[in-house]
């Protein structure tokens, strides 16, 4: 089973203070560390496990600037056969445009696949729709939030999708298809520095995004400004040395009657 896995290099912003330009036109990410989108780790791991059992090869595909080569090296270190980077000038915010680019790239370059995997969403834009748009454009069946692949048959798969509140739905889906993989489906393997170094020796292929922009692959949405989320009342911050703040915390627990 040949699998194309879509992967994206994203800024890690959980613990970063982000600066927005005065006029709201951009967010400064120059001091923020980047890495492979966490969901993509699970997608690649799942693909590798399937190929280990059923045979086949994995191609990693990334859309972004040349720095995105880093996530392809990681994908190869995890078990992908090769990687393709479709180089863009600047960030594409519109998931419809990203999906158009990927569709045109796959068709024009004749990339063969039985399934396409991606992560459920990217950590940076949290759109969560690129795989679904791509599936519809390729006229293929689609499932998002895949949390378990129970069976792989000649022309279909049985899998579980995660719903809300701890419920899943089991579905049957025809192949070829597009699946977006949910975190927690597996335990992604550890990738060592040595592994990445070895992967660097595997040739990656580079393409220019402009080649795949014909056929209405323009942006359907635009971001007009960035701003900070409106502040709510917010928490009362406990001040002082650690021992002091801890005593205050325990005081609150006693006041609320949960601690004797």
């Amino acid at each position, binding site marked *: 089973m040949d699998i194309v896995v879509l992967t994206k290099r994203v800024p890690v912003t959980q613990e970063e203070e982000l600066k927005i330009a005065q006029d709201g036109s951009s967010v400064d990410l120059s001091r923020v560390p980047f890495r492979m989108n966490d969901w993509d780790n699970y997608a690649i791991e799942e693909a590798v496990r399937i190929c280990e059992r059923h045979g086949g090869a994995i191609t990693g595909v990334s859309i972004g600037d040349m720095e995105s080569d880093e996530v392809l090296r990681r994908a190869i270190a995890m078990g992908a056969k090769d990687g393709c980077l479709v180089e863009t000038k600047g960030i594409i915010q519109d998931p419809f445009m990203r999906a158009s680019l990927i569709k045109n790239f796959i068709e024009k370059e004749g990339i063969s696949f039985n399934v396409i995997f991606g992560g459920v969403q990217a950590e940076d834009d949290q759109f969560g729709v*690129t795989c679904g748009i791509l599936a519809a454009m390729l006229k293929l069946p689609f499932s998002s939030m895949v949390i378990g692949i129970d069976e792989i048959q000649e022309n279909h798969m049985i899998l579980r999708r995660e719903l809300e509140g701890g419920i899943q739905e089991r579905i049957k889906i025809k192949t070829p298809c597009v699946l977006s993989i949910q975190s927690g489906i597996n335990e992604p393997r550890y990738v060592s520095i040595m592994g990445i170094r070895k992967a660097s020796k595997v040739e990656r292929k580079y393409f220019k995004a402009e080649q795949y922009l014909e056929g209405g692959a323009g942006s359907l949405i635009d971001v*007009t400004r960035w701003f900070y989320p409106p502040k709510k009342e917010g928490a009362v911050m406990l001040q002082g040395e650690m021992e002091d703040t*801890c005593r205050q915390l325990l005081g609150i627990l006693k006041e609320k009657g949960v601690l004797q």
Partner: protein
Amino acid sequence: MSYTLIITEIRRGQFEERNLDLFGLSHLMDKPTYVLCPEGTYPINEKWADVIITTGLKEEEFLMPMNICKALEKVFERFNISDEIILTHSSSGTECASYISGYFALPVITDVNGINKDSNGFYKSYYSDKVYGEFVTTTPNTIVLTVRSGSFKDKVKEKSEAPKKEKIDAPLAEDERSFIEYVEEEKTEIDITKAEMLLSIGRGVGNKDEIPSYEELAGIMNATLSCSRPVVDKLWLPKARQVGQSGKTVRPKVYLAMGISGAFQHITGMKDSECIIAVNKDPEAPIFQYAHYGIVGDMNKIKDKLKELLKA
């Protein structure tokens, strides 16, 4: 004629509360609200709608990407295409929104939490909820939206005495994808929804070896240990301990969140707790916006100090 179309989310016979936000957003748009539903009877206030369209699809067939697109084709044949197609920002809502966008070549914006009526802009969070972007469409086309729960529910109003009822017959794409069954999580002894106090840990714990130490702290405090999604994804705690949209919704007397930054999916599951106390090393962590009390600091050091004070 211009109108907004709402695609309702019904699961296991329940009219999900998140649907209120779809009605709220639609009512802000000041045009007729059309509602697309699966077969069956649900506790929906019909006065919120101008037109209710049923599809003949069962709930598990209805919110399925290929089926919903076929149903929409029928709707648009009958009523022309709507200005907006609005869904919940949920597992199936977002899944369907993406496929609708690709199928009909329409712009899509997900997780919308506000609008700017003057610029026809939609607000969406980015970068771990640290910033919001305002998005507009570059074409006059219909737009597909998914809505963050809780964002518009207070805008819901009654619109009509008796909505018009319409029915379409939507074909099934069964050979492409079909529903087999719902799968429930295994029952466990510990039920975090029953706890008076939860000690909840997140990504910030950093390392599996720290978990027993939090179990010990929870024991001394008479609290139950729960967690956010990353801790379950790493298999450090079982799924039954997870608080959030894909886990459990909890309302304890005290929710002590340590090392949880406050992704929206987590907030959804704990925001109604009586008292929320957050410990995080990032003073800008979104969780401090929802907490009653906050401490900025290293959770593992604070945990050790709390244990020391409680043992003394």
